[in-house]
């Protein structure tokens, strides 16, 4: 009973907020709706018993990715009228992408129903894992059967990270504007950095 109510609540909210992501005029509102969608998707995952994935979804997407989205979108100075004007122009392209996505979904679900991919048992009735927590079950699978795929994912992310660092890292020989040399700052001592003057009364100080 409570599960059913919760399921419909989360499901309706996911769909409604996903619609609002593309319907709202203000991009910041869009990102906030997107966050609500992520959050409710996490709720759905908790309902099916995948609490580990649900928490990861919130930590990674809501806690990090969406914050960066918001960070960037907040600083955009967008002319909303102009944004709306592009809607008609891009409409055919949007429809095409929507159709492709729909076809992929239908194909994917069809293939899954036909038993082409070995995901548990073909009819989706995988035996529930009993006596092991979510985290252990996932870890046991990731670090045994799928170890190479898992490590390859790690490598891809590492390459992306190095790429981002290389692209943003500024290293010029003489020019240190905007870059703090902490070691140099720590090496300063008061005797070199300051001068003690004892002016006599009525006379100025020569610096």
């Amino acid at each position: 009973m409570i599960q059913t109510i919760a399921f419909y609540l989360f499901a309706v909210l996911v769909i409604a907020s996903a619609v609002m992501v593309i319907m709202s005029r203000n991009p910041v509102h869009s990102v906030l709706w997107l966050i609500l969608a992520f959050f409710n998707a996490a709720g759905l995952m908790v309902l099916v018993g995948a609490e580990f994935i649900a928490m990861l979804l919130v930590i990674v997407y809501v806690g990090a990715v969406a914050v960066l989205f918001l960070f960037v979108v907040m600083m955009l100075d967008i002319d909303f009228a102009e944004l709306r004007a592009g809607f008609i122009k891009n409409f055919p392209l949007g429809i095409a992408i929507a159709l492709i996505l729909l076809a992929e979904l239908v194909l994917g679900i069809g293939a899954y129903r036909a038993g082409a991919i070995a995901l548990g048992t073909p009819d989706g009735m995988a035996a529930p894992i009993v006596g092991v927590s979510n985290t252990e079950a996932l870890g046991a699978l990731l670090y045994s059967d799928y170890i190479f795929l898992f490590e390859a994912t790690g490598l891809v992310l590492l390459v992306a990270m190095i790429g981002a660092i290389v692209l943003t890292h500024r290293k010029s020989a003489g020019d240190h504007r905007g870059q703090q040399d902490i070691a140099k700052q720590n090496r300063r001592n008061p005797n070199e950095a300051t001068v003690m003057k004892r002016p006599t009364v009525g006379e100025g100080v020569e610096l």
Partner: protein
Amino acid sequence: MTEFFQSLGLTYEWAWSLATLSGVLLIALPLMLAVAMIIYVDRKVWAAINLRRGPNVVGPFGLLQSFADGLKVFLQETIIPSAANKGIFILAPIVTFTVALAAWAVIPFDAGVVLADINVGLLYILAISSLSVYGVVMSGWASNSKYPFFSAMRAAAQMISYEVSIGFILVCVVLYAGSFNLTEIVNSQRGHGFGIVNGYYFNLLLFPIWVVFFISCLAETQRVPFDLTEAESELVAGYQTEYSSMSFALFWLGEYANILLMCSLNTLLFFGGWLPPIDWAPLYVVPGIIWFLLKTFFFFFMFSWVMATVPRYRYDQLMRLGWKVFLPMSLLFVVAISGWLMITRYGGAA
């Protein structure tokens, strides 16, 4: 508590709902009272360190100061700037406050005294605490004002930076405890130090990690020396600048509820939660919740102490500390601890 309601003749679902609801109230109401008192304690500690008297007028020893402040704020007019984005402007303090309360659902106050004893308790806390940045970012943007906006940008970058190292630190603790469940993490700390000391701090590999965790907690809750989001010398009051009345009070309450949460996390993860400091039978006579509150209070005192004595960081120093010092260090400790456990606990076999 579900059994109690079931014994009154209710079906399981109704009993569960009522038990959860009363559990929520049993946590939230004392928490609000604790926040009010802890603000008073905070001010008293700063005052003592600055050789001042602190609040001493309202009630005996000024004990009722926070309630007087609350009443004053409650009676003020709520001002919404005309150029503000109204919906988000109102939503921001509510989000801050809700998120600050939500994390308390998985905190065990004593053995078995926890609202939701879920398997992934620690991840839940990490997830919820990563949400607290939204209150700041939303208020900063919706205020449509220069200083709150700067504050929001600072907050977003700061929270993400320190969350990374906090994540790795939690991994270290989880490796030792072998569980994400907070109750099990506390239980695994019993007699951890030579069978005598309860708590992970008594471990050469975990003590440095605790120090990093404590400092990251300061950054995560935006306390001095990392309170750059509300640096009054640069940003007026940061993201709270345009807020007044109850919307301001909600930020305030949420901030202190978050600080208390971080203090209790220090207690639970490294200092043995509700267990007495030493694994010695007579100490178990004292109820676990007393030990838990004492330890949490001790960490809160440390937060105040830091606030009263340490000057504010520069923003580039903050970023450097997060990314160039804490991140490599916590990463190194994850490798070291998993290696150590591999050899000692699992005999080198995979």
